């Protein structure tokens, strides 16, 4: 884990209201694995840091993907090149991919695309055929960037690709990785109990001490999204007890 004073080095739009921000964080770029996250803070920001899956890692830079869902993300999107972020990471346990499976299907919904580019590259480097399945409500909300040997788009309104959810559009494969709203991941758990899913929770410290990011487990009890997670075997989570949707609007 590193604490890096990272300058913002790039920004591009990848969907309606959705942006990728790049920052200079060499130690993190060199060590991050797919599914891990960083916790970002900044001067004049809200009290708590904000967690983001690492979307890209190239050379000395990492990338995150975000849209304005609350006060913190709105402030982040007002920042300009050269502004500094306090970047803590890499945090948590990622997908932990190992060689063996012949094929991997990467299923994402909306901002759940965040951990998938790194996952696609790791899976490809381990010899897997990668199928990229990405869904959103409509075509303008689909992330325009993709990876893998085969790409499947899905939209709720049918404006691009498969008309329906990403889960319904996805074929089976040896390995299933998924990220998206917790409601979508609960559906993943029904279809593929062994899928590896990256979940979203409210988070305090990101380092395992505050116990704020409790994840209810099927076997009973809780563990920490920031430490044991954020990636879990789908069937290990007690989906009925995990908040299905996070509300950020009043966060200040």
């Amino acid at each position: 884990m590193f604490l890096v004073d990272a300058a913002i080095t790039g920004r591009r739009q990848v969907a309606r209201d959705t942006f990728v921000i790049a920052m200079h964080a060499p130690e993190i770029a060199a060590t991050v694995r797919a599914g891990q996250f960083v916790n970002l803070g900044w001067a004049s920001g809200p009290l708590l840091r904000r967690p983001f899956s690492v979307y890209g890692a190239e050379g000395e830079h990492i990338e995150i993907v975000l849209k304005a869902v609350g006060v913190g993300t709105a402030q982040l999107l007002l920042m300009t090149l050269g502004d500094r972020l306090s970047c803590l990471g890499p945090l948590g346990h990622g997908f932990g991919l190992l060689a063996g499976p012949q094929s991997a299907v990467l299923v994402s919904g909306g901002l759940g695309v965040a951990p998938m580019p790194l996952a696609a590259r790791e899976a490809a480097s381990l010899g897997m055929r990668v199928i990229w399945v990405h869904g959103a409500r409509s075509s303008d909300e689909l992330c325009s960037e993709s990876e893998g040997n085969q790409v499947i788009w899905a939209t709720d309104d049918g404006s691009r690709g498969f008309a329906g959810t990403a889960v319904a559009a996805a074929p089976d494969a040896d390995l299933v990785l998924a990220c998206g709203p917790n409601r979508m991941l609960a559906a993943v758990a029904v279809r593929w109990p062994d899928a590896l899913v990256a979940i979203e929770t409210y988070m305090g410290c990101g380092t395992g001490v505050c116990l704020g990011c409790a994840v209810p487990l099927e076997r009973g009890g809780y563990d920490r999204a920031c430490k044991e997670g954020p990636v879990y075997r789908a069937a290990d989570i007690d989906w009925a007890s995990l908040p299905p949707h996070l509300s950020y609007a009043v966060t200040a």
Partner: protein
Amino acid sequence: MTCDLSVAIGALTLRGPVLAASGTFGYGTEVSLLERRALGGMVSKGIFLRPREGTPPPRIAETPSGMLNAIGLQGPGVEALIRDYAPKWAEWDFPVFVNINAESAAEYGELAARLDGVPGVAGFEINISCPNVEQGGLYFGNDPRAAAAVTESVRKRTRLPVWVKLTPMVSDIGVIARAVEAAGADALCAINTFVGMSIDLNAYKPRLSFRTGGLSGPAIRPLAVHLAHQAARAVRIPVIGIGGITRSEDALEFLVAGCAAVQVGTATFVNPCAIAEVHDGIATFLEAKGLSSLADLPRYPPRD
């Protein structure tokens, strides 16, 4: 010039005045990045005799300059603490206090007796902000007799230092402070979190599953400085100030207001190096003021 930042809390001398607050530092083993050199001491995550699952999510909610938490004292129970953590503490060069919790005065004493003499356990911080199950769930910390009974129960079972962490949710903190001093406390920790609530306007219900939570962070600091000051004026034993300390200036406010030491809590969530920065900032301040030791820091009101 090297400033002497050591402080005496009863018979115990701490190498520095900044401690890690309970529930914000785990068991001291979680964060590798932490600069342990600056720690005057550490208070463990609160422990019960038996394991506790904790409350369902959501457990935390951010508020302006603060956060609400309702973790529910999730923990492995005292036997796991003795087995898994105390042996590590025994090797560290700063004291580790165990924050103890129970549902009856007798059970607090039982917990202290179990931990007394365990290598690595330097003393106790009693969390009296727990419901007294034997008396209809009223909080020990709101009632001077119950607070004193808990303190006495622990005092009788150990010769280690006993600190009592006071709740701010009382009409006169001085009354509680005097009651636990008379019952044998070696020091007071002031204060614990304020009870608060925040509403999710999309769901028309509280943002925390537990409904209410403890409010911490910079939002409570002026309230905490005042209550720590009141507690310090009420007793002769040392008071350790807690509440929203993020920078060294915040810690110095508590020290000038009459506290012997401070604990840093929520700030560690945001900045894993917060304690070291507060510690170093106190030294820088004292040097800039031409003071050679923390003992020379002027207090308010001035001491005789």
